[in-house]
């Protein structure tokens, strides 16, 4: 019965502005996968394929709105958005996924592909994301790894110190000191990571969603542009404040300005 209902729904509602709330998450996921596969089958004809990728993106986004949150979903959403020519949505999705799993190679590759499609109005660093000089083979450490390492080092240091009290071996004492220092260093990294996450929560990711957006000195069209160079779709920034339909954003190079709210996608739940 459920497949028949899904089929009827898919036929009657080929364009999905909103997804009915009555559908279960598993059904929404199945519809998204079907639309994506149809898009892949039609990939030879862009005009026919793009609406299916757009529909798949809508379904994946509906899952996100319902609370699903994992790297696989964000990778699917990013791919569907990018194939549907929705560059801001793709950049935002890949960044959301990488925030959960910084070592996901597919998400990183997708983000690189999306960034490669962003059109910058002027040469130079204005609006561009900072260069990542990290070697691709080097894994990005996560806070929980630091925490686990600090815990292991701390316990080991306690054990070694106790053993030293029993035997008075200088080697054990030296090992205990090294373990304590390592635990302290790793704890500092955990604190740093938690602070960084808190800062990211206070200043969420923002992606420019329109072409030719000028950063202005104030929250209104009456204010003159702060920079002459316009920003195009896909440029990444951080949202600082919002007021009366305008948001103040900061680019990676530290440039700050106001843009209309409808021209910026903000990473908000």
């Amino acid at each position, binding site marked *: 019965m459920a497949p028949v209902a899904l089929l009827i729904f898919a036929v009657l509602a080929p364009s999905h502005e909103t997804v009915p709330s009555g559908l279960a998450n598993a059904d929404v996921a199945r519809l998204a996968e079907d639309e994506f596969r149809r898009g892949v089958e039609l990939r030879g004809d*862009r005009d026919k394929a*793009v609406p299916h990728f757009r529909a798949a993106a809508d379904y994946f986004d509906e899952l996100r709105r319902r609370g699903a949150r994992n790297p696989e979903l964000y990778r*699917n959403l990013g791919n569907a958005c990018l194939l549907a020519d929705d560059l801001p949505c793709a950049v935002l999705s890949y960044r959301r996924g990488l925030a959960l799993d910084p070592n996901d190679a*597919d998400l990183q590759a997708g983000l690189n592909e999306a960034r490669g499609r962003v059109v910058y109005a002027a040469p130079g660093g204005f609006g561009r994301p900072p260069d990542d000089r990290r070697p691709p083979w080097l894994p990005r450490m996560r806070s929980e790894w630091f925490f686990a390492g600090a815990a292991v080092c701390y316990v080991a240091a306690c054990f070694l110190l106790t053993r030293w009290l029993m035997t008075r071996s200088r080697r054990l004492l030296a090992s205990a000191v090294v373990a304590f220092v390592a635990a302290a260093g790793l704890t500092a990294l955990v604190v740093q990571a938690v602070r960084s996450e808190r800062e990211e929560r206070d200043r969420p990711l923002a992606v420019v969603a329109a072409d030719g957006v000028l950063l202005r000195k104030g929250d209104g069209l009456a204010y003159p542009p702060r920079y002459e160079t316009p920003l195009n779709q896909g440029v990444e920034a951080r949202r600082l404040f919002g007021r009366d339909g305008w948001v103040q954003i900061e680019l990676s190079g530290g440039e700050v300005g106001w843009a209309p709210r409808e021209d910026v996608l903000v990473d908000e739940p």
Partner: protein
Amino acid sequence: MPAFRTRLALLPFLLLPSGLRADAEIPAVGRPADLPFSEASGDFRVRAAAAPTTMEAETPFTLTLTVEAVAPVRQPPRRIDLRELPAFKDRFDFLEGGKDDDRRPSPQVWEFAYRLQPKRGDVKAVPGVPFVFFNPDIQYPRKGFQVAYTDAIPLTVAPHEAYVVPVPGPPFLFTLAVGDPILRRWAAWTPPGLLTAVLLLAAPLLCLAWFFGRRRLYPDAARVARQRRSLAARRALAALRGAKRLPPVQQAARSAAVVADYLRARFDAPAEEPTPVEAADCLSRAGRSPALAERAAGFFRACDAVRFAPDGPAVRADLTGEAAAFILAVEAETWPPSHS
């Protein structure tokens, strides 16, 4: 007579300044609100022509609107903006440049040219153009506004030729993660406060419990360990006891070998018999005092002097006794009485 009457009717009009004539004559009330007014005053006929009438979508063509006066003209027509007509705005895009082709073939005829292009392939005709003018000959001025429509012009619009373009992107973009994994809800990791507190307190407490528990269970553990560590010394001293009766050269060789074995057992000395310098280094690395290290070097130097002197041992030294004393000195420094 009619001509004379017309001239009489025009007389007040001709006496007005030219800029005021039309405004004074054409009333503001009664104009069709939803149609563009041509500002023309008189009586007119209109017709329209399009060329070409067969084309592809989004291909331009020229629409010519011809206005012909059939009565004396009080005010000439002006070019009307077809974009104000929804029937045109929905079907056509307007291109620049048509105005340059406006013509005036005769004093009574005006031709207005428009450059249009159908937006889609489903455009079938150019709709009739409503030409609004004011006819002053109608007795009631409010009823003087007339609308003359041109005939619709059939068009044959073929769909725009489209090139099939594939969706660009590397292969990994076309892959999808499927199944239950995409429905999971990951929570952002935060440092577990309770676990941290337990870890901070539990580890040292457990270690202290271990330390004191072991001390309680094995009060002689330190002494046992010391005895175990002294096994090498006891073996060495036992071996030296039998070497006292040997000739000096053999006694020196035996003493040196026993001390070398002892150092190897205690301090990871080299496998072969150490030189005086190596013996001193071995003790220094093990954290023993410089005096003890020097004593080891002196002992091995003395053994070498007895063993390798060209004319035999010059002095008769008690090398076994010296070896035993050295071993006891090492033990005493390793396990001082205060630590027992």
